C-alpha cells in the first residue's frame, strides 16, 4: 500500500470501471469495434496487396528467365550452359506465325530438358490443363482459349491439321491443352524438341536461350544490365539479339518505380488512418458527450482527472482489442483472395504488426480529445450539461407588462427542430460531415477514375485513333511474298477503286490512305527492316516545331539525300545506341523490278512522343521527302494501310459490308476496333474491380460513421425526445424531425462529396493526363454519384424509422424517468 494519501494506487479499479463502461454501452462498442476492424482490414488489404504483389512478382521472376538470347547455334547453346555465370539455360525455338481466322498461331518449342538447372532452378512453363507436354515429333499442345475460339475439341488425342505460312499442311496429335486468356490475338502452338530439330516449321530457325544468372537477385539494375550484355558479347552476340527481362529488372534496386510505389502506399495508408481517426474520434466524442453526467458523478465520488482520462483510454484499448483481430482476419482473408499467389506468412505477420501498431496509435490519438473532455467535466457542471454550445442571440421584440422584452423566437416545426438539433454542437456536426465527406470524396475519386477512363480511347492507340477499321496487307501473304510488303504494294496496290468502294459504303465517313514502305537499313553496324514514310514540305515545317535534334531544310533533305529518324525508347534498348544527326544509313529496297541500295544522311532526329499527330505516324522510323521516295520506288502506289472512320451508329453494317468487300481482296485483311476493345476490356475489368472493392471499403467507413452519428444522436437524446413527446410532439413529428436531422448530415456529406469530390476528381484526371493517361477525360460519374446519394439519403430514413419503432417498446413514462 502506498504511504502517501494523495497516491493513486488503484489502476485496477479504473480498468474495472472501463470494462464495466464498455459492457454497458453495446451500441457504441459495435461502432468502435467496426471502425477499428474496418480501418485494420483496409490497411491489411493494402499492406498485403503491396507485399503480395512484391512476393508474387518475386516468385514469378524466381521462375523466369533473366534474359533471352536470340539467333544461337546448338554449339552456342552448350557453351552458354557451360559458362559459370549462368545458373539455368533452356533452349527454345519460335517459328513463323500464321494467321488463321483472325488469330495468329506461333509455332514454338522448348528443349525437352533444360541444358542447365542448378539448385533446382526452373522457369514457368505453360500451365497444363489436360494431357501432357508434346514429346513425340507429331505431337502439339494447344491453348484452351484457342480451341474454344477455333471450335476445336480440347481433348488430348484430337487430330489437328494446320496450314503453315509456307503452304505446308501438317497434321498433329494434340498431346495436351494449356491455359490461356481469351480474346487474345496470338496463341502459341507448342511442339516437341524432336520437331524443333527436324520439323518443317522449326528446323531452319535459330535457337533461343532462356538464361538465368547466378546471384542476379543481389545485383542492382545497372550491374544486372552489364552482366546480361557482357555475357552475350562474350559469345559474339549483337545487342539486338539480347533481350533483358524488364519485369525482373524493375524488381532490382536502383529504379525510381519502387520509390514511387512506396510513397503511394504510404500516402494511401496515411489517408486511411486519417479517416479512421475522424471516425473513431467521432464515435468516442459522442459516447463521452452522452456520459457527461456519469463522468461528473465519478469525479464527485473521487476519481481524478487523470483517472478519468485513463478510464476512457482503457475503454478505447479494450474495444481495439476486439476490433483489431477481426480486422486482421477480414483484411488477411481479403488480401489472400486479392493476391493468392503473393501470400507469405512472414509478410502477413510483419504487416499485421505494423497495422496493429498504427491502429493502436490511431485509437489513442482519436480518444485523446474525448478523454480530455471527459476528464474536464466538473461534478457541478455535469448536471447542467446539455451539449449545447450556442448562447442566446438577438431576436424580435415584444412588449410585455409595460416592459420591453427582447427574445429570439424561431419557428418551431419538426424541420427547424432538426436544424437546431444538428447545430447544437457545431464542431461535432462539422466533424461528422467532414469524416463522411472524406469517405465520399475518396469514393468519388474511384468513381471518377472509372467513369473518366475511356476504354475506347485506350483501345484507340495507333491507327485506331483515326478510325474504327483498318485494311492492311494480310500478314500471311506479306510473310510469304519474296520481297515482302513492297512486292504486294507493286502487284496489288490499294488503288482508287478500292478506296472508292470503301467510301461508297453507307456509314463510312472518311478513308485515310496511309503511305509507307518497308526497307532494310544498315547503320552503326546493325541493321533491320523498318518503315519509311514520305515527307511533304508542309509536314517538314511542322516537324521543326517539335522536340528534335539537328536543323534541316526540306530542300537539303531533297538534294542531299537527307533523312529524318524518329527517336523512341526502343532504339537504345534494342541496339544500345541511338541515331544522331550526321549518321549514315544505308537503305535497300525492292522497287518492283529489282533490289536497290542508297545511302542517306541523318539530318534530324525527332522525338517519337510528339510524332503522333497524323495517321501513319506511329510505327514510322524514317522520313524521306516524298519526291525522293517516289523516285526511289519508281512512282509506285505507296498505300500501305487504309484507316476507315465510320458513323458511330453504323459500325455493324459497315463491318458487314467491309467483310464482304474484302472477300474480293484475299491479300488484304480487315481489323476492327471492336475486336481490339474486347482485349482491352478484359485487361481493365480487373483494375476496375479493385477500385470498386476499395470504394466499397470506403463507403463502409462512411456508412459506419453516418450510422453511428444517427443512432448515437438518437439514443443519447432519448430523454429529450420523451420530453418533446410529453408536451405534445406526435410520433410522426418526431420521426420527421429525426429524418430531417439525418438528411441534413447526408446533404452536407453529399455537398462535400459533390463539390470537393468533383474538384479532386478533375485535378486527379488532369494530373494523370499530364503523366500520359490521355485516354482519360473528365466525365462526371452520374450513376456512381446517384447510387451513393440514394444510399446516403436512404440510410437516415431507414435508421430513423427503425429507431422510432424501437422507442415504442418503452413507455413514455419510463423514458421520461431516463
Amino acid at each position, binding site marked *: 500500500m502506498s504511504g502517501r494519501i494523495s497516491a493513486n494506487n488503484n489502476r485496477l479499479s479504473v480498468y474495472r470501471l472501463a470494462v464495466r463502461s464498455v459492457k454497458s454501452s453495446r451500441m457504441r462498442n459495435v461502432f468502435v469495434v467496426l471502425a477499428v476492424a474496418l480501418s485494420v482490414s483496409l490497411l491489411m488489404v493494402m499492406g498485403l496487396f503491396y507485399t503480395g504483389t512484391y512476393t508474387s512478382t518475386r516468385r514469378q521472376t524466381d521462375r523466369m528467365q533473366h534474359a533471352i538470347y536470340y539467333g544461337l547455334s546448338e554449339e552456342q547453346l552448350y557453351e552458354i550452359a557451360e559458362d559459370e555465370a549462368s545458373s539455368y539455360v533452356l533452349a527454345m525455338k519460335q517459328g513463323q506465325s500464321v494467321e488463321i481466322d483472325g488469330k495468329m498461331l506461333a509455332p514454338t518449342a522448348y528443349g525437352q530438358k533444360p541444358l542447365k538447372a542448378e539448385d533446382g532452378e526452373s522457369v514457368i512453363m505453360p500451365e497444363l490443363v489436360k494431357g501432357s507436354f508434346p514429346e513425340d515429333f507429331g505431337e502439339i499442345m494447344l491453348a484452351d482459349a484457342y480451341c474454344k475460339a477455333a471450335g476445336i475439341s480440347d481433348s488430348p488425342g484430337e487430330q489437328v491439321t494446320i496450314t503453315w505460312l509456307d503452304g505446308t499442311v501438317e497434321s498433329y496429335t494434340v498431346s495436351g491443352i494449356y491455359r490461356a486468356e481469351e480474346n487474345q490475338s496470338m496463341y502459341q502452338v507448342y511442339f516437341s524438341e524432336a520437331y524443333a530439330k527436324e520439323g518443317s516449321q522449326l528446323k531452319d530457325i535459330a535457337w533461343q536461350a532462356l538464361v538465368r544468372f547466378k546471384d542476379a537477385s543481389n545485383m542492382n539494375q545497372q550491374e544486372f544490365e552489364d552482366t546480361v550484355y557482357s555475357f552475350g558479347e562474350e559469345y559474339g552476340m549483337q545487342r539486338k539479339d539480347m533481350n533483358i527481362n524488364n519485369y525482373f529488372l524493375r524488381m532490382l534496386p536502383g529504379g525510381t518505380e519502387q520509390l514511387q510505389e512506396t510513397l503511394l502506399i504510404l500516402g494511401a495508408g496515411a489517408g486511411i488512418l486519417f479517416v479512421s481517426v475522424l471516425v473513431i474520434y467521432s464515435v468516442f466524442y459522442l459516447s463521452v458527450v452522452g456520459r457527461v453526467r456519469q463522468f461528473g458523478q465519478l469525479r464527485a465520488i473521487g476519481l481524478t482527472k487523470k483517472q478519468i482520462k485513463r478510464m476512457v483510454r482503457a475503454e478505447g484499448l479494450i474495444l481495439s482489442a476486439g476490433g483489431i483481430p477481426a480486422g486482421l482476419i477480414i483484411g488477411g482473408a481479403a488480401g489472400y483472395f486479392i493476391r493468392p499467389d503473393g501470400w507469405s506468412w512472414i509478410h502477413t505477420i510483419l504487416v499485421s504488426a505494423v497495422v496493429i501498431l498504427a491502429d493502436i496509435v490511431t485509437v489513442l490519438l482519436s480518444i485523446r480529445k474525448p478523454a480530455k473532455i471527459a476528464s474536464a467535466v466538473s461534478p457541478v457542471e455535469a448536471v*447542467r*450539461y*446539455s*451539449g*449545447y454550445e*450556442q*448562447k*442566446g*442571440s438577438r*431576436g424580435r421584440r*415584444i*412588449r*410585455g*407588462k409595460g*416592459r420591453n*422584452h*427582447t*427574445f*429570439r*423566437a*424561431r*419557428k*418551431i*416545426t419538426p424541420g427547424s*427542430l432538426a436544424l*437546431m*438539433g444538428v447545430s*447544437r454542437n457545431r464542431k461535432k456536426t462539422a466533424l461528422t460531415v467532414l469524416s463522411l465527406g472524406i469517405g465520399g470524396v475518396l469514393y468519388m475519386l474511384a468513381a471518377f477514375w472509372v467513369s473518366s477512363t475511356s476504354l475506347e480511347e485506350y483501345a484507340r492507340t495507333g491507327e485506331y485513333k483515326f478510325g474504327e477499321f483498318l485494311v492492311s496487307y494480310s500478314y500471311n501473304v506479306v510473310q510469304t511474298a519474296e520481297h515482302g510488303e513492297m512486292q504486294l504494294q507493286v502487284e496489288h496496290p490499294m488503288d482508287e477503286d478500292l478506296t472508292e468502294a470503301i467510301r461508297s459504303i453507307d456509314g463510312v465517313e472518311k478513308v485515310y490512305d496511309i503511305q509507307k514502305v518497308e526497307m532494310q537499313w544498315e547503320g552503326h553496324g546493325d541493321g533491320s527492316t523498318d518503315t519509311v514514310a514520305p515527307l511533304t514540305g508542309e509536314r517538314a515545317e511542322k516537324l521543326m516545331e517539335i522536340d528534335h535534334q539537328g536543323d534541316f531544310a526540306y530542300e537539303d533533305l531533297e538534294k542531299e539525300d537527307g533523312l529524318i529518324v524518329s527517336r523512341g525508347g526502343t532504339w537504345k534498348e534494342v541496339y544500345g545506341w541511338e541515331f544522331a544527326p550526321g549518321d549514315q544509313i544505308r537503305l535497300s529496297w525492292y522497287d518492283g523490278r529489282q533490289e536497290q541500295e542508297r545511302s542517306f544522311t541523318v539530318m534530324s532526329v525527332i522525338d517519337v512522343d510528339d510524332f503522333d499527330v497524323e495517321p501513319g505516324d506511329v510505327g514510322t522510323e524514317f522520313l524521306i521527302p516524298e519526291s525522293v521516295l517516289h523516285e526511289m520506288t519508281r512512282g509506285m502506289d505507296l498505300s500501305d494501310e487504309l484507316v476507315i472512320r465510320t458513323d458511330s451508329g453504323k459500325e455493324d453494317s459497315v463491318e458487314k459490308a467491309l467483310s464482304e468487300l474484302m472477300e474480293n481482296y484475299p491479300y488484304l485483311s480487315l481489323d476492327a476496333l471492336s475486336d481490339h476493345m474486347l482485349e482491352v476490356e478484359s485487361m481493365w475489368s480487373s483494375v476496375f474491380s479493385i477500385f470498386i472493392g476499395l470504394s466499397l471499403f470506403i463507403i463502409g467507413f462512411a456508412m459506419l460513421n453516418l450510422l453511428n452519428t444517427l443512432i448515437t444522436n438518437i439514443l443519447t437524446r432519448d430523454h*429529450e425526445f420523451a*420530453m*418533446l*413527446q*410529453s*408536451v*405534445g*410532439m*406526435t*410520433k*410522426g*413529428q418526431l420521426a420527421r424531425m429525426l429524418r430531417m436531422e439525418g438528411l441534413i448530415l447526408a446533404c452536407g456529406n453529399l455537398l462535400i462529396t459533390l463539390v470537393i469530390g468533383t474538384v479532386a476528381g478533375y485535378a486527379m484526371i488532369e494530373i494523370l493526363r499530364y503523366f500520359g493517361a490521355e485516354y482519360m477525360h473528365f466525365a462526371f460519374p452520374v450513376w456512381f454519384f446517384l447510387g451513393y446519394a440514394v444510399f446516403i439519403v436512404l440510410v437516415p430514413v431507414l435508421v430513423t424509422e427503425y429507431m422510432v419503432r424501437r422507442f415504442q417498446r418503452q*413507455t*413514455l*413514462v419510463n423514458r*421520461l424517468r431516463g
Partner: protein
Amino acid sequence: MSIVVAENLKKYYGEEPNIVRALDGVSLTVEEGEFVAVVGTSGSGKSTLLNMLGGLDVPTSGDVIIAGKKLSGMDDDHLTIFRRRRIGFVFQNYNLVPILNVYENMILSVALDGQKPDERYMKNVIGLLGLGDRLNEMPNNLSGGQQQRVAIARALAAQPALLLCDEPTGNLDSKTSQDVLGLIRASSSQFGQTIIMITHNEEIAQTADRIIRIEDGRITESRWTV
C-alpha cells in the same frame, strides 16, 4: 362539471407471484377549477396515477375520462394531440428542451400544434411568472426555480383545462417552492384551470381544495381542506 373521471384504474407490473400493483382499483372524480393535492409515501402510486390521468402511461384496466373524452379509446397520435391541447404538465425535473430558449420552450406545445401562441395571453403568463428578462436564455443557464417557472409557463401556454404537476417543488428550496406554488395557484385561478398536484409536503397539500392520500396503489383518504 367533472373534468377528470378515473374509473377503477389498475396498473400492474410483472406476473404472479411477483406482481407489483402500482395502482389497484383507483376511482376518482375532479371538478372543473378544483385544486387537488395527491399525497403518499414513495412508491405508493402517486406518479403512476398522474401519468395515467395525463395519458403518458396506459392502465392495465379501467378508464380515464378527461373533459368528457375517454383516453383509452384514442390511438397514440390522437392521445398526443389531445394532451398538447387540453393537458399541461409540470414535472419535478422541469423537462425543458435544451436546444430551445426559454420562450421557445414555453410555446413548444402550441407550435407543435401548428398554431401561433396567443401573444396577449403569453404576455400575461410571462409577466405573472416574472420571466420577461429571461426569454432569450437557454435552459442550462437558469436556476432550478427559473427552470420550473418556464415549465409552468409551458404547461399554461396552450391554455389547457387540466394542469398535472408531479412534485413541481421537489427540487426547490422552501422559499422558491412557496413562490412557485403561489404562481401555479394564481395562474390556475386567473385562467380557470383544474390542478392535480403530487406533493410530499403536507404544508403545500394543505393549500389545496382537496387532499387525496394514496397508499399501496389505493386511495385511502380523500378530504376537503377548510
